[in-house]
């Protein structure tokens, strides 16, 4: 099938780009066919965010969003920034970047569902349940579209009785909007050497739950961020607590994936966070109703790869526009989608050539708040490499004294290189779940509604099948069993007395991408499973 533009991923970036493309086409009285592929069973099914949402990009894209009924229902009314120690909470002044006046506490998944309706009304083909599995190239090597995933293959890859091959979608321009650490983006970065001369991307893992709380503990509009406990001072991260409408509270915990101790378990840190005396009361008498996890980009300006290549662009968090000190990515993702659409529309209407490069995309972005703010914030996150206190002090100096204009730029190291051998680290003894406030992994995954049809090839590909037993287990004590928030990786006994074997429970996967990022031997490739498989988040 032929389109003018194919967009991979129906997140805020992809949907904003689709809407802006059709708006421009309508304005110019031109026809421009746009389709959006989404791997989730429906739009929003795989979206997980905080989320405190800054509406500035939405204001620009659809200024009448209020009249159209966009699901921005809870304005932020109060900001708190807490430093937690074991048993105590100290209220710090809220840093200027973290002020949320004029922002809303939302479900980003629900916003995406609404954006998809707006896009469809403008004539965009939105196609959930169809993952893009492969990038297609023309003879010159330029991107000419993508192919969707095959359906109905057997575990060994052979064709099953209901086999349905993927479909090739050809496009004059393909926008990759896969969100943090996209699987096709990974192949494009290799093929077009998009990281040449730039540092590595770095990441965090965010784990989130939604609770229905006792109405007497509900403070709609309240936003709390925390740093400190339960993490040690070598590990970057923190918690959030956002009070939505209808007695709902979103609680989450983010751990920088540059953590060093292979015994660390982000899942258990999240559970522990909820037990802090300043946090726990919110959940007493409440009920957990949703669970999920997703990696997020933390590399900022230094982690941005080249954004354009012949035939396509990287847009949104798959490139990496999240602003770490502000903990905001969705407004930047949307703004990058709008800018990409303008760049591509201009290119397609001024030239009929195939496989050309919208190389002005980066230049256009440089003139927006997206890049300008990332520039100002560029040194804050890398400063935490020196530990929590030095990082915090540096962040304060960088923010209040230099105001982001320090005459240097700090560099990153790749997350998978930061893990230290287990023998140099302290095992961590996490408390057992109590079944009220804290839970185990499997009962949590249950609430993500994740599902992968049985009898398909495993979508977590090991490059070298021996590596887990030769490297991950003996040197790092099998860290994947701890960092995977869904219990996908499990070391199980074999017949042999003291040998353990890595078992991959792929059906539990919630598509967070952490294993592809953190595996110390870079031995895991996350690829898309069959269409529609994965979590079914009810408005995360």
């Amino acid at each position, binding site marked *: *099938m032929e389109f003018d533009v194919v967009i991979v991923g129906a997140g805020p970036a992809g949907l904003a780009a689709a809407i802006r493309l059709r708006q421009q086409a309508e304005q110019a009285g031109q026809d421009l066919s746009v389709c959006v592929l989404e791997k989730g*069973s*429906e739009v929003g*099914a795989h979206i997980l965010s905080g989320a405190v949402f800054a509406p500035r990009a939405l204001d620009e894209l659809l200024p009448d969003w209020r009249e159209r009924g966009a699901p921005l229902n809870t304005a932020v009314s109060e900001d708190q920034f807490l430093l937690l120690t074991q048993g105590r909470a100290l209220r710090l002044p809220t840093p200027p970047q973290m002020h949320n006046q004029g922002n809303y506490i939302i*479900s980003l*998944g*629900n916003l995406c569902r609404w954006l998809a309706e707006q896009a469809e009304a403008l004539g965009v*083909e939105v*196609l959930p349940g*169809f993952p893009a599995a492969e990038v297609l190239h023309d003879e010159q090597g330029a991107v000419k579209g993508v192919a*969707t995933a095959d*359906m*109905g293959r057997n575990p060994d890859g052979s064709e099953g*009785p*209901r086999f*349905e091959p993927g*479909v090739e979608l050809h496009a004059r321009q393909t926008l990759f909007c896969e969100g943090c650490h996209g699987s096709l983006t990974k192949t494009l970065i290799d093929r077009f050497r998009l990281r040449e001369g730039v540092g590595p991307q770095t990441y965090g893992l965010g784990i989130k739950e939604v609770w*229905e709380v006792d109405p007497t503990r509900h403070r709609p509009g309240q936003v709390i961020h925390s740093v400190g406990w339960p993490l040690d001072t070598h590990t970057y991260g923190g918690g959030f607590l956002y009070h939505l409408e209808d*007695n709902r509270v979103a609680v989450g915990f983010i751990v920088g994936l540059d953590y060093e101790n292979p015994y660390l378990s982000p899942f258990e840190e999240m559970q522990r966070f909820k037990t802090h005396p300043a946090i726990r009361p919110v959940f007493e008498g409440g*009920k957990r*109703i949703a669970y999920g996890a997703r990696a997020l980009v933390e590399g900022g300006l230094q982690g941005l790869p080249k954004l354009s290549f012949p035939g396509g662009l990287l847009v949104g968090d798959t490139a990496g526009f999240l602003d770490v000190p502000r903990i905001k990515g969705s407004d930047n993702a949307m703004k990058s989608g709008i800018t990409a659409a303008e760049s591509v529309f201009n290119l397609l209407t001024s030239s009929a050539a195939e496989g050309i490069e919208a190389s002005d995309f980066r230049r256009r972005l440089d003139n927006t708040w997206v890049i300008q703010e990332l520039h100002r914030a560029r040194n804050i996150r890398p400063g935490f490499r020196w530990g929590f206190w030095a990082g915090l002090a540096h962040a304060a100096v960088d923010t209040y004294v230099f105001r982001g204009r320090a005459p240097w730029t700090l560099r990153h190291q790749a997350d998978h290189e930061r893990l230290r051998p287990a023998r140099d680290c302290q095992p961590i003894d996490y408390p057992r779940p*109590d*079944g009220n406030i804290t839970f185990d992994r499997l009962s949590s995954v*249950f*609430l993500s*509604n*994740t*599902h992968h049809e049985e009898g398909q090839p495993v979508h977590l590909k090991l490059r070298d099948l021996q590596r887990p037993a030769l490297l991950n287990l003996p040197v790092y004590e099998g860290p994947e069993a701890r960092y995977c928030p869904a219990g996908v990786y499990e070391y199980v006994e074999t017949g042999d007395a003291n040998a353990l074997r890595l078992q991959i429970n792929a059906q539990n996967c919630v598509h967070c991408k952490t294993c592809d990022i953190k595996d110390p031997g870079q031995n895991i490739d996350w690829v898309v499973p069959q*269409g529609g498989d994965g979590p*079914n988040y*009810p*408005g995360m």
Partner: protein
Amino acid sequence: MKVLVPVKRVVDYTVRVRPRSDGSDVDIANLKMSMNPFDEIAMEEAVRLREAGVATEVVAVSIGPAASQDTLRTALAFGADRALLLETEESLAPVVISRALAAVVGEESPDLVLMGKQAIDDDCNQTAQMLAARLGWGQGTFACRLEMGDGEVIVTREVDGGTRIVALKLPAVVSTDLRLNEPRYIKLPNIMKAKKKPLDRRPLDSLGVDTRSGIRMVSVAEPPARKPGVRVADVGELLDKLKNEAQVI
């Protein structure tokens, strides 16, 4: 031969549901909704009959809210020729649905009604039987095999302890069981084509059927939670707990 396939929009089978906090109903806000899996099986069978040249027209019908259009689009992407939505915001019991379907049958005059044996939301397993009774047609429920004969349909039914084969004179009502077929994966081009197929929308009122069911939902509650397990140090402690705490041995 014309086949009518009633399809229901239900909470997707992968999604966990829970009661609303006031216990008035199941909370379905923002949940993923899909075509009832047994209706997919009925759709698949109807489309196979169409492809085999036995059926000449397949019509999908749904009774439900405006969003049931999505479910009907899926039916059209499967291969239905056209679709009919009878809109209502009320959640209706099988006794009412069967009344409405009987009225649709009156308008459409199908030779065969192929439908799911039950919907996975209320699991009633009543609509097909009630419809057949209202129409005075033969019924073949729990079908795991279906063969078209001359003016009749031969249905292999799943019954306790085996299968039972019945021959029904057409027109007839058949309800599908899990083993009848495995529905196909829908092709992407067919989803795009489905957007252009005819989908007729009318208020349910236009059928003039009585929507009272005589049934009132009192409350919805979760089953009691299982107590968390405890870890015991050794067999002795386990025996002790079984004997003295649980008092089961």
